[in-house]
């Protein structure tokens, strides 16, 4: 493998990681602060992609669609919180898993009823349709580079928000000891709603960004959701910093595993079985790494201290 190809694969890994981070950030906050398992988080990602695609076609501009998708995602998140999730905070995890799984099924079918089951056409982002030739014969789309930059900016913004503002302080305090925060006179219900809406908006934003790159189909959030859970478990539940590092790690491991494992295995076995084993092993790799990390550090890489 040439240096150029390795560089391209590193970029691919980083880009996947950044996208995962945007989904995982909201998930880890909701899980960490509210101790609430929200399987329906992937649904927010899917809805973000659908809303951005439809509004983008309507406004004939990808960027306008993206911009409009943000308040709509926030609104959908708040409505879902008010309708369903609010009534589950006090319940045990099993009830939460069951109810939010029900939300996945309902919303997936609603999406099918509204938009149909065929993949949706998405307008290409104006100004970012070209590419940079990083390697002879391969252009790296500028839009994918833009995703990396935007993701890094969002990560920075989140860090400032959580680490440097009063609202962020409350969120961190809530993650450590919610009843104590409540006892100090903070309206914890309002805080929860705020965190939830914000998380939903981030997931919607990720979905909208993913639209021009991936297929916008019903159930597109499911694969992302599983990886996002891996990310927050590796990173430590409730930790934004952990989610960021774990997301990039998962993105890199997944990409490099797929890129290199079949070739590496060919050194020790014949070509056709190396391909099969390599493919199987590459798709398991992130889970193996997760298991290994949990073995040595059961609370993840950056555990949130609980009071």
């Amino acid at each position, binding site marked *: 493998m040439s240096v150029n190809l390795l560089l391209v694969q590193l970029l691919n890994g980083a880009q996947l990681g950044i996208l995962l981070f945007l989904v995982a950030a909201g998930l880890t906050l909701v899980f960490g602060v509210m101790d609430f398992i929200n399987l329906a988080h992937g649904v927010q990602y899917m809805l973000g992609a659908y809303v951005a695609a439809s509004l983008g076609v309507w406004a004939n501009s990808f960027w306008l669609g993206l911009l409009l998708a943000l308040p709509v995602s926030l609104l959908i998140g708040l409505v879902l919180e008010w309708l369903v999730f609010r009534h589950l905070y006090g319940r045990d995890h099993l009830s939460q898993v069951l109810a939010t799984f029900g939300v996945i099924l309902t919303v997936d079918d609603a999406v099918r009823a509204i938009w149909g089951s065929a993949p949706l056409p998405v307008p290409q982002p104006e100004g970012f349709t070209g590419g940079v030739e990083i390697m002879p014969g391969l252009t790296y789309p500028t839009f994918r580079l833009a995703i990396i930059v935007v993701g890094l900016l969002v990560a920075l913004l989140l860090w400032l928000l959580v680490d440097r503002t009063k609202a962020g302080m409350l969120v961190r305090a809530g993650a450590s000891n919610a009843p104590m925060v409540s006892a100090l006179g903070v309206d914890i219900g309002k805080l929860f709603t705020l965190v939830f809406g914000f998380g939903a908006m981030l997931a919607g934003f990720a979905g909208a960004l993913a639209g*021009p790159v991936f297929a916008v189909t019903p159930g597109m959030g499911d694969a992302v959701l599983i990886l996002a859970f891996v990310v927050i478990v590796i990173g430590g539940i409730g930790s934004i910093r952990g989610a960021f590092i774990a997301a990039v790690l998962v993105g890199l491991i997944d990409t490099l595993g797929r890129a290199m494992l079949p070739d590496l295995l060919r050194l020790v076995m014949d070509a056709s079985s190396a391909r099969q084993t390599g493919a199987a092993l590459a798709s398991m790799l992130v889970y193996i790494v997760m298991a290994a990390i949990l073995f040595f550090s059961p609370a993840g890489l950056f555990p949130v201290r609980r009071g």
Partner: protein
Amino acid sequence: MNRRALLGTAAAAGFSGAMPSLVRAQAPGIKVGFLATLSGPAATLGNQLRDGWLLSVKHLDGKLGGVPVETLVIDDELKPDVALTKVRAALERDKVDAVVGVVFSNILQAVFRPVTESQTFLITANAGPSTYAGRGCNPYFFTTAYQNDQPHATMGQVAQDEGYKRIFILVPNYQAGKDAVAGFKSRFKGEVVDEIYVPLNQLDFSTEVAKIAAAKPDAIFTFMPGGLGVNLVRAYRQAGLASIPFLSTFTVDEATLPAQQDAALGFYTAATWAPDFANDQSKRFVKDFEAAYGYVPGNYAAQAYDAALLVDSAVKKTGGRMSDKAAVRAALEKADFTSLRGNFRLGVNHYPVQDFYLCKVVKRPDGKYATETVRKVLTNDTDPHAAECRMR
């Protein structure tokens, strides 16, 4: 409830004056159970199949062979157990004369025995697994589609004809993906520089696309149905690889083109039919289909349209006596109808012997995307399993 109990109940119902069941049994019409995947991500294919059949019936004035036909549309939800339950009900309660449709091979496998063992005709308009083409061929099973190996083999022939020396293969890691590779290799004799198997829930193809760019093959061969194909085609185009010929099967077709749009322009696929076929019947089909359903018909719809013509021809030949199974079977085997594809007959294993075409994605003057025939690749092609079939 077992069969005897069921019959007992039916008899009792008859004596107590519940006439409708008796009346229905004597009704002269034909009843067809149309089985297709109409929900879930693959519903686009099921819709094509159903709409093709319904249009054909409409063109025949709601009759098959002059006998009024009733179509019961059944959604298999892409779940073999659901398909089995619903098909059993259609056989035992509704007493359908034939089960038609079927998008996926695993659904066909689930319903195959109950349908054929009840001596009901099973005619698929898309699924054509090798299982029933060779030793497993069955007098009650017919297909108007193709045997699954054939489109992949067609692409192998294309790569061979074009003189490509180095091919890069990319398929999903499951049985159909491996069959695609085997089918392609059965006719392509050059070097396969690399084969990549990706998981079915693959998110992003940028890794694979980078590997393709590094390997610099003469062309790639891929089989990426549904959303996977949308992802791949976008990543391939965006990475500037479109100068490397994109040979594919079931990756760019009328079901996925509405989402792929410009990204798929100039990409190749193998098919038995394309909407630009010049014969008058095909032209009428495409025109009426688009007017009625608002989208471009693909292979799937054309094969279902032909399925109705096939049944129509058999009913005509037997004078509407669907109960005379031997006569119906003989009439079906004749396949005495004009297919949208032109050249069409059924082989000994009841799979079509037909021509296969290389097709290319184009943008039509009206702004819609469709496939267009480039050239005929295989003529009168019989599938490789037909020789093993000993039809009873």
